[in-house]
């Protein structure tokens, strides 16, 4: 009975079957059929991933105030389509080792990041963060430690884990559910000069968080990266990997956010850094709303302040 249930679950939106299907397609289907397949699979997920669709629609009403609900359905479809393409292209990179065109915006900050010893990359569920980590490690010959939320489905989690590890030894993966041990691991890594990449736009489970304002709404953003930056000490570099088109990406690096101890209370130091991060995130999401893959509700408090 259990095996039947787990087999059924593997076909769910968060299941592992479609991930295996995608791997199979990338190995077996020529690239000139990819737009055809991606379009239909996007349609499929757009209809069946109801919770994710609702979350994207609710975000769009906040990001684009006054937008028509009907138009937001098309916009949500674009978000799903871009997500499908980033997953497809990350799989192409993983399995076929295909070359990708890559531009860089904010070269001065990026060079600073590469030259420095120990830094935090703060990113969002935007563009292709998995592909970004792999490109970063292989192109710039720097080890990177990626902190991410685990997949809810055990088989999917295992599949994603293997995919990230296939990027090479330069990409190390840690899960945000690892608890206190993770904090010490990351602190050691930073003090040893490693680069730690953390997604800072979504709070999952018992993760430490702090209030912030995004698009005029109250949200909770992870406070872990800021506490880590304060303790290490390390600079925070906002970095996003944006998809420009067919196998074309842009790495966007924004001005680093310092999170240092001052004469003020510790929570105020952290709060001011989180406010700056929220401003950067808002600007990037406003510009690239069609690539913000926040499939769980972010704006918990719907009351406009």
């Amino acid at each position: 009975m259990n095996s039947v249930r787990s087999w059924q679950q593997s076909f769910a939106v968060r299941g592992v079957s479609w991930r295996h299907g995608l791997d199979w397609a990338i190995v077996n289907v020529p690239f000139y059929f990819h737009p055809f397949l991606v379009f239909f699979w996007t349609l499929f997920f757009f209809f069946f991933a109801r919770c994710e669709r609702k979350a994207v629609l609710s975000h769009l009403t906040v990001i684009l105030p006054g937008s028509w609900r009907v138009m937001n359905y098309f916009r949500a479809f674009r978000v799903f389509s871009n997500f499908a393409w980033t997953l497809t292209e990350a799989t192409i990179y993983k399995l076929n080792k295909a070359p990708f065109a890559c531009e860089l915006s904010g070269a001065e900050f990026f060079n600073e990041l590469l030259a420095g010893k120990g830094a935090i990359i703060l990113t969002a569920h935007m563009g292709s963060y998995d592909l970004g980590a792999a490109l970063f490690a292989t192109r710039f010959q720097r080890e990177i430690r990626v902190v991410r939320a685990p997949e809810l489905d055990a088989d999917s989690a295992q599949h994603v884990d293997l995919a990230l590890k296939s990027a090479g030894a330069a990409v190390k993966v840690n899960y945000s559910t690892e608890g206190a041990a993770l904090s010490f691991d990351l602190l050691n890594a930073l003090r040893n000069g490693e680069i730690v990449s953390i997604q800072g736009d979504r709070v999952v489970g018992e993760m430490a968080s702090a209030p912030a304002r995004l698009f005029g709404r109250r949200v909770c953003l992870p406070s872990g990266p800021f506490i880590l930056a304060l303790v290490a000490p390390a600079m925070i570099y906002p970095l996003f990997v944006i998809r420009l088109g067919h196998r074309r990406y842009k790495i966007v690096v924004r001005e680093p956010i310092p999170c240092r101890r001052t004469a003020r209370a510790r929570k105020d130091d952290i709060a001011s850094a989180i406010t700056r991060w929220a401003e950067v995130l808002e600007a990037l999401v406003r510009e690239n709303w069609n690539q913000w893959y926040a499939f769980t509700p972010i704006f918990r408090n719907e009351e406009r302040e």
Partner: protein
Amino acid sequence: MKSANDRADDGYYFALPRLCQRLHGRGNEVSENNAIEAYVGSVGTFIVTFLLAWQTFTHNLNGWPIIVLFLLLILAVWIFWLLVFYINSLAIKVLRRTGLFRSASNRHAQDLFIGIVVAALAYQLSILPSWMHYVGILYLIALGLNLMAAILLTLIPSPK
């Protein structure tokens, strides 16, 4: 600023644009990064398959059933191609045991089978008594030119 890999989108996959490149004295690297080729391949194949299915199944239909059939055929075309890819992959597996396609990757080995299926569909479309036969003819011409270009590419020496 562009990275060291900014030549990743140079080159073509199909033989016809590669032949044109070579005739202009440029290299003819095989690349899978051309967006136009990807979309032309996808849209072209979808149109040929859909039009043939439409002509085959919509005889004597009027009103709302035709709208339902339109939507069903779009899904049917998707499922049809998924099945084709799967059957092709099985055929490639069998042929590999006989020593064929040993050096080609699965997705490149599929080219031959897809070419045969698409040519058969385009031929069927081209002989229908409807304006749609022009689409079939156009597709067959494109396939023929690409085949000729592939042969010429093997005969014309590559520029150094």
